[in-house]
């Protein structure tokens, strides 16, 4: 039975368990003679088999009884005789499992690296913030929140779109290429230093390459009476969005 299911063991690669029982008898690990290391080999074959089994002498059928798939390995582990010291896996299965584990590990590491690049906490100014009560603001452009939050808070007596008095909040991002314009109070305009775009205090563009007016953002009165600015909602003039009541805070 053993003769049929097992191919002649090549002398160089004895099955891991096979050498163990012989170890006490032949402690010298350097022994080059194959005979003690291959007790399972039929004696008749031992001298004839060369270092590598000749291909015709080992037919494919000899893989019968050996584990050729990971599933077969699992089955073999569960039903295995504890004294069975035959190789658990073939070289092909072992390589497949090793490469599979390596590939899976690499894929996980790659995904983890990608995730690492997306921080959970940002040290950026909040999108929603309160800027004080309406009485803190005089008529015209207020620049106090330009550096910290990127907005101009403008109080007007008569807005060009809403036709009412109150507040609107302009984003300080130039609609040309995203620089921050300067407010020139003497000329009553926003002037971008990058390419010379100019905007009226209303936000309407009138000179330079800017293709559309500055954006307004949501402004409302908070429960505590302060003005609440919400940059997560933008209103664009050219889309007719400045009519939206959320884009303007009416204060008589």
């Amino acid at each position, binding site marked *: 039975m053993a003769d*049929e299911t097992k191919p002649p063991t090549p002398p160089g690669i004895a099955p891991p368990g096979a050498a163990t029982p012989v170890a006490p008898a032949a402690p010298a690990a350097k022994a080059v003679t194959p005979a003690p290391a291959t007790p399972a080999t039929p004696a008749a074959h031992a001298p004839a088999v060369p270092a590598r089994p000749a291909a015709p002498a080992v*037919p494919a*059928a000899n893989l019968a009884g050996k584990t050729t798939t990971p599933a077969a390995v699992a089955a073999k582990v569960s039903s295995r005789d504890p004294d069975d010291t035959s190789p658990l896996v073939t070289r092909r299965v072992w390589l497949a499992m090793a490469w599979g584990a390596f590939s899976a590990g690499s894929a996980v590491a790659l995904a983890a690296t990608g*995730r690492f690049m997306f*921080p*959970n906490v940002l040290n950026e100014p909040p999108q929603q913030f309160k800027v004080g009560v309406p009485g803190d603001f005089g008529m015209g452009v207020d620049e106090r929140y330009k550096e910290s939050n990127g907005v101009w808070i403008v109080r007007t007596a008569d807005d060009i779109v809403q036709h009412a008095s109150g507040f609107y909040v302009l984003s300080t991002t130039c609609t040309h290429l995203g620089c921050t314009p300067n407010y020139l109070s003497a000329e009553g305009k926003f002037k971008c230093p990058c390419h010379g775009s100019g905007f009226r205090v209303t936000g309407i563009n009138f000179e330079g390459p800017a293709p559309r007016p500055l954006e307004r953002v949501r402004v409302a009165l908070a429960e505590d009476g302060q003005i609440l600015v919400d940059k997560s909602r933008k209103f664009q003039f050219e889309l007719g969005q400045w009519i939206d009541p959320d884009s303007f805070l009416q204060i008589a």
Partner: protein
Amino acid sequence: MATQTKTVKPQEGAGTRFWNWLTETQVWTSVFRHDRPDTDRNRVLVMLSNIFLHLHPVRIRKSGVKLRYTWCMGGMSFFLFLSLTFTGLLLMFYYRPTLEYAYNDIVGLREHVPLGIMREMHRWGAHAMVITVWLHMFRVFMTGSYKPPREFNWSVGVIMLVLTLLLSFTGYLLPWDQLAIWAITVGSNMARATPFLGNEGPGAALLTLGDVRLIHAGDDARFALLGGTFVGEGALLRFYVLHCVGLPLAIAVLMAVHFWRVRKDGGISGPM
């Protein structure tokens, strides 16, 4: 029955036709300039036509792949260096080497940056690399692999051992906690005793111009190391640059020499 062999006739299925088309495209043939590695010649070509594989010899001794002989400690050290380089690069995206941010950034890496394990991988990998480098050296010594013609490579290895320890030392300061600051204070105080170049070292008192000492606390070896007279902002930035750029570059160059020298000296040394 036992001698029957079964031959499978290749079939021209869609997969085969796709494979044939793919392996004849210009992209494929420009990347893989050899046939399947099923002959000795093609196996050699695989190794020679690939920048990464060509570092390996085409053939090695059996002892070269024997774990019991090499312990694979050189390979482990190199693997750890690669993983430390990679995790270190990622950590650099979140760490700022200034008094204001350094400690908080390290805490943030653990507390709120995705994958808090990233810093631990770097830290434990660093400890492991120091250990594997020592064990590699121990193995090389015990197998006598430092003997001619490998004495040059042994010396390169000794320099890399020092660089590994310096990488460990400079990285130790970067968390900027009490442990780091005082450890580097103690460690850098040793530089005071450098012969001639440390202001408390032997011979430093001999270097005078009239009665003016040339080597003093403001210009000695320790001052150059710390960029100041105590472990402060200058030391943090200096250690950061050395840790992330200077020392890794130096050790990478020496590694290239080391691996090349292994090949030129006849491959991994064999058992006596």
